[in-house]
Each structure stands twice: as C-alpha cells, then as structure tokens.
C-alpha cells in the first residue's frame, strides 16, 4: 500500500443505491405541473380541429 491510506469499498453498498433509485421512481408530479399539462376541456380535440371540406359551389342557372 502507498503511504497514504485510501478508503476501500465497504460491503453492502448496493442496498442504499437501490433505495435511492426506488425513491427517484416514486416521485410525484406537482400540482403546478399537472395544471400546466392537463387536458384543457374547452380546447378542441385534434378531431374537432379537422376543418370541414369546403362545399363545392352549386352551378346556378341565372
């Protein structure tokens, strides 16, 4: 070993790492985020946005 003593891995480090990952996966969205991303009921859906085909002008006999 060198003169300086360095830290060596300790057993059991994996358990806390898995907990941290689980904690991250358990995060919940804030109300602010949900308010921003929520579907707006008064906003037309994509289908609604489809514009009706223009009506062909009738031949009008004058």
């Amino acid at each position, binding site marked *: 070993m060198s003169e300086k003593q360095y830290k060596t891995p300790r057993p059991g480090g994996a358990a806390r*790492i898995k907990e941290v990952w689980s904690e991250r996966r358990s995060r919940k969205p804030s109300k602010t985020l949900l308010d921003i991303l929520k579907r707006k009921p008064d906003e037309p859906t994509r289908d609604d946005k489809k514009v009706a085909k223009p009506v062909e002008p009738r031949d009008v006999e004058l």
Partner: protein
Amino acid sequence: MCEVKGLSYLDQVVSKRSETPQGCLVDTSLLFALSYPLDVFNEDAEAAFRILSENSIPVFTNVNIRTEFIELHRRVAIPEGLIDLLDDQEGGLDGHLVQKLKSLRTRYRKANGEGKTFKLSDREIKSHRDMLTEFEGNGIDGWEVFCKDYLTGAIQKEWDTTEREWNLNFLSLRSTEKHPLISDEVTWEGMVELVEKFGIGAMDAMILNLFRCSRLEVLLTADSDLAYAAEKLKLNGKVVIVPDALCS
C-alpha cells in the same frame, strides 16, 4: 501488452499477486452499472466491488468519470421521469402528450425486456423538451416544472450515494503537488495520441491516459473500446477487468 481478463479472474488478480495492488480505477461504464439497478452489468459491478472490498483495494475515480456518470444518469432519469408522469397521471394529461409518452414507454419496456439500459439521446431529450415547453402557465413552461419535479436533486443523489456507499476515492490532478499515485505527467498530448492511435472517444482516452500514467494496477470497465485500446498498450503489470460476457 496489457492483460484484459474477465471478472471471474478479479479475485485471482488482486489476491494472488506478490504485492497487493495499490488501487483500481473504475471507468464510467462500470460505475454507472454499479449505480443503476436495471443495467445489464449491475450484478457484475456489485460482484467486482465485493471482491475489492474483501481484499481492501481502494477504488478511484476522477472528474471525467464523474462527468460521464452524471450525463448517463441524465439520459436515464429523463425518460424514467416522463414515464412515471404518464403512469401516475395518464387520465389528466393532454391527449397528444399522452400518445407521445406512451410511445416512449413502449420503447422503455422493450429495452428493459431485452436487458438493455434505456437512454435517450441528446437529440431525443431536446425533442421532449420542445414538446413540454409548448405547455405554459403563470410564466413557467412544462419542461421547467418537469425538471424541478423529477430531476432536481436526483442526479446529485445518485453520485453522492454511489461515492459514499462504495467509499470511492477521487483522483484529482488539480493540485500543484504531484499526486502520489501518478507516476508520469498526464498531458493533453498523451490523451490525443490515444484518440489518434485507436480512434476512441476523447473521454475514454482521458480515462485510459490517466490509467497508464498512474500507479493503479487495475482498470474496471464495461466499455469494449477502452478494453481494446488498453490491450494494445504496453502497460506492464497492469490488468483490465471486464464483465465475463465481454471477454472473448
């Protein structure tokens, strides 16, 4: 030539040498695998660290490895956050957004099913950012709030926990005093030489250059580029350990 050996030889490498190795450099690929439970090499990384623990071998990392570690976690945490948002609030989200996130979730599940770590590319992250910035409220956009809810503090915690739980040592070259574990000067020219010689990425070359200029005898990696280049170098007395699955 530098020896490249499978993980199953690590115990022999560290315990049967005439002198106990001074230390081991762990590269980003294996450190990430150690920190991410779904990574295909997670168990290999844990097994390697158990052996190093039993043999009291210190493990070193540096600023390049930490930078890459943070970047990999960003590329993993963003899609996972988006998928968690979908899983929690599918019914309350904008319909177009739900369709995009469902597509992301399908890819994520497929990758997991194949034992692969699902990471978004930088381009894909920008695309998802653009999608969420279209939503705004009270002067803040959806991406900003998403990052606050799902990322803030999370990636720092991944690093801190990995460093603390596995007792990593940080090899810093910034000090004016030469580090006792550095035998040769670590130079940019040395790094570029490795890029040019083997066509490896600059970050990989920095890590390999540090390894060859150090007194550390063992490099742990799951990066085949790094193992390939290390094998070609004349690094007497040094050994590269890779997961057995990568050992031809």
